[in-house]
């Protein structure tokens, strides 16, 4: 009996060693994936980035030189349009879910829909906008691309808004109401300011998410070689540019794809990092 116990404890020990080794290996794989992607972007992309790359239009097919300035500008335009659609609607839905929704059928439907639509593939939204905007107007356009990104932003924005509003303690809502403030006033002047940092963070995360979307843009913004001239014409965007260059046959394009990807990834990373720092100092100051 005693010897049996001893052997089982020894095999337990061995299993532990093997098991923990596996977890370590898995973690190294996860981190390795991150570092190898970042390393490739930096090694292959840094050479592509210079002043011309940021300020010039794309060069003629297959030729060296040229830049991605129209894509950067287009990205800014598309993200701006998407925020015009997505932020008010998303925040509105978030306010509804946190502050107003009761146990009615309507609120239950709204809640399930929002949480379901976070998971709907973005290409489906692209198909939707293609049919309601691109096909009727007979042109791909910046507005269509922005609308698609905005729709994708809505459920993300709604859920983060709901979450941060729920973190605001109910007691301060009660305090406002007990002073005779109407609900809208408590919302606008107490709850939203208290949750401001969180809502802004949620907004930036949503923007970061849609700024990296490509699939819906293939069906809506299409891409373009030139500076944008109209909101109702096809427009280029940085991920569309990366897609095109990655798939092209030229080494120059590949290098520029890495360069553009490097800019995109670091743009998103630095943006979120700065944001995290500023909101943290803000909430500390409060």
């Amino acid at each position, binding site marked *: 009996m005693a010897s049996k116990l001893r052997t089982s404890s020894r095999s337990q020990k061995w*299993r532990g060693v093997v098991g923990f080794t596996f977890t370590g290996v898995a973690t190294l794989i996860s*981190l390795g994936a991150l570092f190898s992607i970042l390393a490739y972007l930096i090694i292959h992309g840094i050479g592509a980035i210079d002043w011309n790359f940021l300020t010039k239009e794309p060069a003629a097919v297959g030729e060296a030189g040229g830049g991605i300035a129209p894509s950067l500008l287009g990205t800014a335009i598309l993200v701006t349009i998407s925020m015009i659609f997505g932020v008010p609607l998303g925040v509105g839905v978030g306010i*509804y879910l946190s502050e107003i929704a009761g146990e009615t059928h309507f609120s239950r439907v709204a809640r399930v*829909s929002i949480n379901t639509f976070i998971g709907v593939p973005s290409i489906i939204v692209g198909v939707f906008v293609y049919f309601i905007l691109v096909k009727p107007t007979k042109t791909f356009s910046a507005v269509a691309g922005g609308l698609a990104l905005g729709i994708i932003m809505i459920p993300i924005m709604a859920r983060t808004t709901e979450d941060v509003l729920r973190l605001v303690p109910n007691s301060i809502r009660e305090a406002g109401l007990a002073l005779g403030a109407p609900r*809208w006033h408590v919302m606008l002047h107490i709850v939203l300011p208290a949750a401001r940092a969180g809502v802004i963070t949620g907004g930036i995360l949503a923007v970061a998410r849609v*700024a990296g*979307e490509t699939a819906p843009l293939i069906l809506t913004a*299409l891409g373009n070689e030139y500076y944008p001239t109209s909101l109702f014409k096809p427009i280029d965007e940085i991920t569309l540019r990366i897609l095109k260059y990655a798939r092209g046959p030229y080494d120059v394009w590949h290098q520029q794809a890495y360069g553009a990807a490097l800019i995109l*990834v670091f743009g998103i*990373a630095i943006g979120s990092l700065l944001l995290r720092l500023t909101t943290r100092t803000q909430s500390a100051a409060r």
Partner: protein
Amino acid sequence: MATATADVLTSRPQNEARSRSNRGDQIYLAVVTSIVWVVLAIFAGIFVVLVTGAWPAFKRFGLGFIVHTGWDPVHLVFGALPFIVGTVLVAVGAMILAGGVGLLTAVCVTEVLPRWLQGPVTWLIEMLAFIPSVVYGLFGLLVLAPLLQRTVEMWLMIHLGPRISFFNGAPYGVGYLSAIVILAVMLLPLIVTLSREALILVPREIKEAGYGLGLERWSVVWHISVPFARNGIIGAFVLALGRALGETIAVAMTIGGGFELPKTIMDQGYTLASVIANEFNEVSSNMYLSALIYCGLILFVITVIVNILAYFIVRRLSGIHGFKA
């Protein structure tokens, strides 16, 4: 005053409306509620547009579209089975890789690493979620696919190929396998973060009870912590599966493209999402377009089902553990 009391003594139900009679509040409620209606209308609109767009193909092929192969834009014969199989193959393959690695990583991050390393490592893995799909696609297409071609695919073909026909393919690089691997990397942050949250919620008392019985640390982790966090981990996996089914660009860039059923894991093919992305701007006829939308409708229905499932699993958990997705 006593008489004034008398007539208000009659019992009177309080109506909610009176408490909200403030005009500002009426406007506030109206605005917010109509925003919700607009958003729900958009969501319903997506479904309506998909059904209308898919209608011509549905009339022609019916539900048989789902179980038929053959994709011939010239003779207008379409069947989505290869893409459905491709979607399941890629998603399940990626889930197996990412599920295993992700769960082990989550265990490592919560139970193995010293406390001062847990935060930074988690943060780094979360960084993976910030990388856009197209960048994964770029890396998959230009780095991973050639690498797999030279190493894993070659090895599989030579060593497993003769015995298992599923591995007996030509190593092209791009193809199902590359799509599976790159998709697995994309799913890692989601699985690690959510599984970690579930593991963190395992009460210390329960683990201590395990140590008290003389169990080694690994046994406590594997036989107590992981089973205890099981529901949260399942929720994480279902959410990740939803992501995997719908991922488009990274898969479209690495899967190679093809309209036939996969015979080996090295073949080139399509998933439902990637066939739309790659073929949409190439369509030559309305029927072809409609067939693609039909694919979109199938994808939509599948992901909605998976996500509703995930929602209810996660919500049930939040009732129990305060688990948050």
